[in-house]
């Protein structure tokens, strides 16, 4: 009996030794970095290095400078910030996600940026992600996870001792148990809420219209294409978007602010090319609703580009309803008129006209496409089509 008490005492001592403090101050608190945080930083630096070399990284200096400028404004209003440089990387993926590393690298997915409507929403997103960084959430989450595991191992050990059956040690101490996963999601929820609050305050301090902040979550909620098909980066790990939108509405109501910067036009001008690329990616994944939303954004610009109409044509072909061929042809024709050097538009227009039986116009457009892109891999096929279209009717 005595030996059981000794064993239980030893387990408890090991547990206390294993538990680490989760009372972690913000970055600028002047606290010495513990070895586990330094290890986290090392890992993070390696990851940052890989991200910066990734082929999926969008390399557009003007967009980069703009995003860093907005991030800098938001970061300046954060308590606990340090002189550490923050870095922003845009990754070309049509899914909706953003993240921040322990060392201050913020990753923004093009799919999410394409959904935002203005700079105030962007500031909300950046504020949220930078709050994770400043508040050292990755370290807190790591410690909470390890402490939770230690608690479970203690419980398993005590049960095994009490019942003289080692099986409890295996069952309760399992690192992969589902209940532990649930517990972790709960902690994450708490941290997300904390980051929401800090991010909200930072975007307000930067002078943005806080009433726009809630739309960030509403934008995610309308990801209809992502709802049914597994999305590896979907914000499903976060508290439900409805809940977070409700939290933001509370914050907005409490702030009782009625003004501030929105920056719709500035934002739209900077992300136009990114939205075009994102529509192409969405079309490439047959995401009908997402690609339509993107095309509508492009067409809502004061002077829509030829590429916007070209993508509208592609979207009509993807939608595949009865009126699609005629609507696609109309959109391609508009794109070809707006930019007479747009080879893909001329080619698509020619093929669409051929499908509609407008042979003379189709032959002219296809000939123009060949002249604009003489090196195209399908040139022989286009030439054969032109010959066929120009041949006298039998």
């Amino acid at each position: 009996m005595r030996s059981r008490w000794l064993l239980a005492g030893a387990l408890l001592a090991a547990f206390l030794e294993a538990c680490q403090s989760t009372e972690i101050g913000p970055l600028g608190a002047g606290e010495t970095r513990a070895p586990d945080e330094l290890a986290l930083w090392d890992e993070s630096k390696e990851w940052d290095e890989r991200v910066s070399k990734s082929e999926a990284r969008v390399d557009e200096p003007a967009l980069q400078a703009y995003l860093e400028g907005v991030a800098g404004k938001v970061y300046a209003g954060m308590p606990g910030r340090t002189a550490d440089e923050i870095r922003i990387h845009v990754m070309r993926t049509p899914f909706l996600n953003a993240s921040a590393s322990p060392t201050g690298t913020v990753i923004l997915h093009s799919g999410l940026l394409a959904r935002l409507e203005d700079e105030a929403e962007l500031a909300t997103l950046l504020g949220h992600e930078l709050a994770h960084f400043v508040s050292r959430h990755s370290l807190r989450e790591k410690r909470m996870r390890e402490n939770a595991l230690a608690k479970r191992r203690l419980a398993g050990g005590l049960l095994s001792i009490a019942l003289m059956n080692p099986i409890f040690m295996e069952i309760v101490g399992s690192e992969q148990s589902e209940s532990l996963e649930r517990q972790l999601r709960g902690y994450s929820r708490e941290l997300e809420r904390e980051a929401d609050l800090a991010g909200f305050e930072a975007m307000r301090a930067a002078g943005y219209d806080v009433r726009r902040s809630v739309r960030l979550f509403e934008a995610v909620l309308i990801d209809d294409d992502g709802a049914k098909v597994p999305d590896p980066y979907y914000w499903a790990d976060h508290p439900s978007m409805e809940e977070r939108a409700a939290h933001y509405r509370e914050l907005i109501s409490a702030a009782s602010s009625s003004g501030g910067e929105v920056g719709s036009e500035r934002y739209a001008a900077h992300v136009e090319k990114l939205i075009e690329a994102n529509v192409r990616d969405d079309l490439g994944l047959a995401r009908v609703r997402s690609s339509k939303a993107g095309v509508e954004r492009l067409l809502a610009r004061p002077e829509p580009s030829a590429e916007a109409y070209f993508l509208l044509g592609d979207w009509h072909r993807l939608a595949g309803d009865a009126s699609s061929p005629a609507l696609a042809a109309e959109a391609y024709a508009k794109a070809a008129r707006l930019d007479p050097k747009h080879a893909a538009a001329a080619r698509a227009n020619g093929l669409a006209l051929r499908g509609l039986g407008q042979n003379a116009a189709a032959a002219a457009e296809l000939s123009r496409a060949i002249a604009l892109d003489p090196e195209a891999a399908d040139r022989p096929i286009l030439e054969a089509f032109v010959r066929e279209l120009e041949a006298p009717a039998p």
Partner: protein
Amino acid sequence: MKATLALLLAIAGPAMAGDVFQVPEEQVVASVHVVALAPLRDLTKDGAPSAALVRWEAVLTEELTALGLKVVPSTEFARVWGALASELGGVWDPVTGKADAKKLKAARQHTFGELQRLHGIDAVIDWHIVESHTSRLWSEWHTFGKQVWKAGDETLQLGGAPLVLRANQERPTRVLVVDLSLFLSDRNDVTLYQGTLEVAWTEVRHGARRERRPAAEVFAPDRDVRIRAMLKPLREAFDAAAGKAKAEPSAGS
């Protein structure tokens, strides 16, 4: 009796796993009405009997037609593809056998476009069979052995006598199987639906020996059921949509 048992056991297969729909299934039901079949590509070592390939296309056509789809036969796909590929001077390098990626993409896109113009297709079905190694657990009953699909004992009713096959998890083994894969793709070559199923093992074990099964056995008509199994989730999606349409009659009806 042993031979019959061996055959019966050797053709037992697993359920199809993984996500078959690559886009929301409602989108597939709403957007796919006419499909073109590409010819079945036979990549097996000895080649499948041509009668089996013809039969499989008939089964696939029958299944798709039952969903309410119009099916353009593979001969038409082959005709259009052949004409376009020849305009490009061939897609495959005659020496290396490798495809020219740009030409292949162009031929593929224009084949879709032509079949759409001529037949109004919304999607293409590409399918192929290939032989591959699959890890299985080895199970034994007296002198008779079989590979089983999962761990655990299995009871089989044969001629009224139950046989209990005990799985030996310590002896995983690898067997050759014919896999049938099917991809339903849209005009951008985006996969909308996909499935892969093991049709049959191409070898059986007798004690320590492995014997190659005759093609007539591997591609026997009772294997046609695999095509139907592969299309089951698609059938369920179309049935669900039809049920929903019945439950919500239009205002005019």
